[in-house]
């Protein structure tokens, strides 16, 4: 099974890249792929409980219900002074080393 990562590295405000990336991730669930959504750098802001998620809330819900792994880079979280309690429950804070390992195993990565 092909491992594919949709990497969200842009914040939810100022650009619509992250919401469109998450929309593409929902389409990828149509195929038998080992799919990961990975939030890094400012992309982790998309997964804050208090973020305005109006343009991508339904995508997140769908991805979560579909069992897609939603991982957030632990280093990016710490660098921004965020805590686990700030993050939505659907996302898992993951050590940077594990994120790199997963990305290195991917058939392709889609960066938004």
């Amino acid at each position, binding site marked *: 099974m092909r491992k594919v990562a949709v990497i969200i590295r842009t914040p939810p405000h100022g650009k619509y890249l992250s919401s469109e990336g998450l929309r593409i991730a929902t389409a990828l669930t*149509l195929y038998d792929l080992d799919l990961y959504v990975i939030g890094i750098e400012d992309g982790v802001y998309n997964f804050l409980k208090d973020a305005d998620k109006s343009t991508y809330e339904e995508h997140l819900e769908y991805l979560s219900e579909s069992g897609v792994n939603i991982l957030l880079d632990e280093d990016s979280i710490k660098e921004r002074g965020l805590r686990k309690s700030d993050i939505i429950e659907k996302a898992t804070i993951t050590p940077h080393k594990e994120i790199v390992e997963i990305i290195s195993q991917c058939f392709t990565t889609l960066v938004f």
Partner: protein
Amino acid sequence: MPSLGILFYNGPIQYVTPETVIEIARTALDKGYKVRIFCFMDGVYSIMKGHERVPEEMINTEDAFKELISRGAEVIICTLTADQRGIKDVVEGVIKGGTPDLAEIIDEVDRFIVIT
């Protein structure tokens, strides 16, 4: 025949991205690859008709995508993002599709790259 899939989402004139896609696609076709390109977000401007006064040092993406299609490349436009931008008239041979087509490409090709 080996196959290559490409996704891009930046538009012409403002970004070099579409020109990079075109150059990679040309090279892949030269080497005998089946090429499948998915145009997303502002990338859809690359295949709309009516590009005028494109500086000589830049690639006219409208003409270049016509050439790629004539050489057998499959070029798919994301209809939703094109409609959102009011794009109605696109290069002949472009396939109107959506993100499920992108998923199919990723599932089927030998190599897949995203040009940003």
